[in-house]
């Protein structure tokens, strides 16, 4: 197997954009991650999608709630460490039954160079489940589109919180540049 790097665009990243676009996602909040860089660039280039760079991921939960009050669908992009920053704000989603779509690029689980990523990376799935969020974990490129389509259906069809975790196996090893 050829090792992939998180700096090279993968076909699934463009497919992911098309799925979000097709689902009429109009606001995308994010704290950047290398694994989301292609998606962020595509969102920024699209005049019908408002990209909102956040200082912390919990802002994106509140942003999504506001967007929905205004009749727009949104998505939140973040790295696994950001999930920990969202926990209390997810109460808003549950208390009001807002739709909430989260796309999470994983760190701390596979070929992880930085051990400080492991504590949060290792508890993302149970932590989200405790917050009443549906969680799907994707490790193969061909699983990305169906997993996100299903999460879209859960979020906007059932008015609830749904997350797709994009594995490090999918994204590739983080490139460390000196």
């Amino acid at each position: 197997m050829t090792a992939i790097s998180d700096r090279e665009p993968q076909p699934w990243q463009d497919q992911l954009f098309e799925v979000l676009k097709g689902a009429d996602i109009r606001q995308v909040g994010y704290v950047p991650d290398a694994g989301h860089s292609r998606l962020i660039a595509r969102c920024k280039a699209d005049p019908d999608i408002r990209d909102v760079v956040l200082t912390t991921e919990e802002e994106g939960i509140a942003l999504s709630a506001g967007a929905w009050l205004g009749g727009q669908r949104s998505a939140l992009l973040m790295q696994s460490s950001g999930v920990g920053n969202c926990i209390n704000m997810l109460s808003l989603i549950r208390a009001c039954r807002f739709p909430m779509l989260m796309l999470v690029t994983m760190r701390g689980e596979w070929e992880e160079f930085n051990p400080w990523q492991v504590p949060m990376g290792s508890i993302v799935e149970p932590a989200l489940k405790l917050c009443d969020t549906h969680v799907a974990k994707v490790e193969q490129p061909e699983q990305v589109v169906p997993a996100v389509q299903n999460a879209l259906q859960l979020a906007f069809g059932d008015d609830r919180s749904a997350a797709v975790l994009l594995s490090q196996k999918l994204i590739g090893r983080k490139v460390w540049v000196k």
Partner: protein
Amino acid sequence: MMFERRATMATLLADRPKNLFLVPGLGSCTWDAFAAGDDDRNFYLWGAMGGAAMIGLGLALAKPNARVAVVTGDGEMLMGMGSLATIGVQKPKNLSIVVFDNGLYGETGMQESHTSGGVDLLEVARGCGIERVMDIADEAGLKELAGLLATHEGTLFARVRIAPDDPPRVLPEKDGIVIKDRVRRAVEIATRP
């Protein structure tokens, strides 16, 4: 000048246009909003501390022909201070953030907040690139602010120094689903072309 919070909220909403939506921060500002008169255009917050300004931003971006006013306390604003940076980058034309600043955490026993310790939210807002920043000094300033909530073409941040009182609580609807659905419907109706 120190303002009385209930009267201040009432003044801000007195000539409310039909497309002005209010996001009051949890606790006292939500009680103040309800005391001024229940309204389908109020997204009462019972939690989500630190999130009021971002809820306002999401709504303002989604509906450019709605007016959005976030009215929140100093403690709630401090918890979401980063959102002022996010809003400073987005610069929506239809969003105002008003902080009722008494320098105290009112709901928890009047402990001093950072604004009692020298932190100036006006300087924070300026530093975040918010174009119009106002310190409300008197009744005329408050009336001007009320007008700007309806008309200002840009992002606005205002501080209103509030007296440290604790008026009796008046509690609005508590069911988040009901609150969300009625605000969403009201947005749809108010912004129909």
